[in-house]
């Protein structure tokens, strides 16, 4: 799987490249600033791009802007955005196009190499990987009188994990429940939120994220 990597800190860039290569990815380009990232995305057409939000030359949200721009040009271009901090605002911007194949994680998550590689793979396959902190914030938005307040604690837990982009099997394993129990919970959540249920994991997650993004 071919990856374009954009990170301005030399140490971190090399570390990420090492980590991804050890998990079987091929780094086609590892760039350090915004313009070269734009260049690499158009030239290499990678299977997935891992992009830091803050990049030279402006050191503002250059990486995010280029990621959004590239996805506008190529809808569904898989991009995983990394940042030292997470903002609901940015997450909502990434989710707005509803095309999937998007991720937004804290840089801390690379400390757990297996999970990080899993997240990159998920995004490359058209899924999503949202940071638990973002999801927690999205779930808290909107106040007391939303459909979310009608969920049971267990259903909320399932929703949270699902919104992070995890598959049914992963949720079941995490909560020590059977697959069928998870399916039942998911059906209940979708009924309470008034969403159409789908068999496809990715599409289900996108429906949930679109719901959270709108609330």
């Amino acid at each position: 799987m071919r990856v374009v990597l954009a990170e301005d800190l030399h140490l971190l860039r090399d570390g990420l490249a090492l980590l991804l290569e050890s998990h079987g990815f091929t780094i086609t380009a590892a760039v350090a600033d915004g313009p070269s990232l734009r260049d690499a995305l158009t030239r290499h057409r990678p299977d997935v791009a891992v992009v830091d939000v803050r990049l030279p030359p402006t050191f503002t949200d250059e990486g995010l802007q280029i990621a959004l721009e590239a996805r506008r040009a190529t809808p569904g271009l898989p991009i995983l955005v990394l940042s030292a901090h997470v903002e609901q605002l940015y997450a909502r911007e990434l989710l707005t196009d509803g095309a999937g194949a998007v991720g937004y994680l804290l840089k801390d998550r690379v400390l757990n190499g297996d999970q990080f590689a899993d997240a990159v793979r998920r995004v490359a396959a058209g899924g999503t990987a949202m940071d638990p902190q973002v999801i927690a914030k999205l779930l808290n938005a909107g106040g007391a009188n939303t459909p979310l307040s009608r969920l049971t604690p267990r259903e909320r837990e399932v929703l949270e994990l699902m919104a992070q982009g995890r598959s049914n099997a992963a949720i079941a394993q995490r909560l020590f429940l059977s697959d069928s129990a998870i399916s039942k919970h998911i059906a209940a959540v979708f009924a309470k939120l008034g969403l159409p249920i789908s068999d496809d994991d990715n599409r289900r997650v996108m429906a949930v994220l679109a719901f959270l993004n709108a609330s």
Partner: protein
Amino acid sequence: MTRHALAAPRCACLVLFTAAGFAYSLVMLISVTLVVPFPAAAAGQQRLVALARRLARGWTGIDVPDVSRTPPPLPQRRADGWYAHGVTLYRSPRTARWMSAIDHYGNDPAAAVEWRWLTLAPFTCAVPVLLPPALIAAGLLALRAGPWGWLAAGGAVTAALLVAPTSLRWYGRSTRVLLQERARPARTGWISRAWTATWRLGGLAGLHLAGLGVALLTFVTTVVSWGGLLLAVTTLTRPVTEMYRRQAHRWTGVALPSPYRPLPPPPVPDEDGTYRIGRTLYAEPGTAAGLQRHRWVSHDPATWRDQLWAWGALVWAPLTLLPALLICAGFFGLVWQPITWAPWAVPIGLFTGHWITPFYLWHALVHGGVVPAGIPGWTSVPAGLLLALLGLALAAPLTRARIRWDALLLRPTTATVLAGRVEQLSTRRADTADAAADELRRIERDLHDGAQARLVAVGLGLGAVARLLETDPVRARQLLTQAQETSATALAELRDLVRGIHPPVLAERGLTAAVRAIALDTPLPVVVETDLPGRLDPAVESAVYFAVCETLANAARIAATVTLTMHHRDGLLRMVVTDDGPGGADPSAGTGLRGIMRRLSAFDGTLTLHSPTGGPTVVIMEVPCALSSPKTSTS
């Protein structure tokens, strides 16, 4: 049947009740004069009228609505054991309670209406209910007249029973009308404006005369004591001039800010231990402080400008009392007196046989030689109207002239304004420097105890791993996991710290996006309307960001929805945060608002809180600042 039977005694009760009410209205009058029993009497009046409303509702079937009232607020005990009412402290809760009750009942708009009802009810509402008892009494008297009397008595009692319910209804209706508070239509016409201006002008003239009185006192005392008592007498007289400034502002809308210099700090000894005041050195700190305060008053130009202004009353007081005098003499004298002649002159004429002419005042003027003889008495009405109109016409120009004189002498001079500004800026600079130093200390402490310590732990752990790698791989693996966890914690701590110093989203996107980000993170719906086409100065941006954070956090504790608007116009950034909470926020109660004020005041910004009980609470923050052109994107 029962309704008719009950109605007559009820009528009698209501007659007695209104009579008692009238007696109570006299008690109210006396207690208002004596002041001390006023709160108790006012509370009694409220209870009495509440009973009257209840009786009217229950017995007459007419809906006389209740007035919802709150009891006077109880003064809270402060931490130092005193009780506050306004800005004054009282040792005993009783006095504070009494003061707040006076304010409470004195400001009750319904009290006047209710007193009016107590006074008027025996002559208005009680008239219809007097009829049935009177009929019954007449019937009882007729009993003595023999058999025909029995018939008459029967008729009278039947009539009384028949008419009683109607009487009750009339009582109820008139009570409702009298107890209703009618909203007075706003008066905006030329005459009503001039009318108000006239009396205000008269009031200002009175205050000016009071100022002249204290100026006279200052003059005499200062001359007699060779200036020694100037300080003492000035502390007594300045409040009078200050009162004039406040009233003039309230009544004319022209601000007359206080011009006095702030009290200087106590004198500091020189190197040789003496205190220098002017060109003299003093050994005693007490003497030096006294002299310094004396100089504070005598060297303040405002002291002498006040005096000059007060002496101006010799010209200005008569001149500005003129409209009020013209209206009094013209309207109340020459017009009102002939109009109201009949009710008082006819009874006097009937009783004494001595008939007073309707144009009594006019004839007095003729007699005094003010008006030439031979002009008929009725001319007093048009002449009086003309005088009154002249008074009204003079009110506005005279107000303008007076306020020009006031502004000339009562406002601070440019030098005083600048001195005050320097003072204010040095205080703010000190505050800002303190706040910055505190912030740096906090950051240093957080880094030292947090991330720095954890990185040391990670380093130690990795050193141990290097040693154990060959001998004890299991233990080495454990230590590695631990090091990873520690570094994750350090990262989280650093992230929080960074957010507190300068939020990343503010650095990346600017104020508008950062405010939207806080709005999203606030756990209640926040409507954000912003109109900022460019970026602000980074320091202002940061101060404004934290001010908005704090305000939204405050609102989120009590409200269900919040609206935030942010605009930049004419070099002024203005943010308005409105919430639907219960209101009653007190800026002095929490440190939060004061922190915001301090943050904003470093940039000459202001915070205004408007929070009436019952809400909505509105916080207005304004910061003068420039807006740079939008940053051009590199893309």
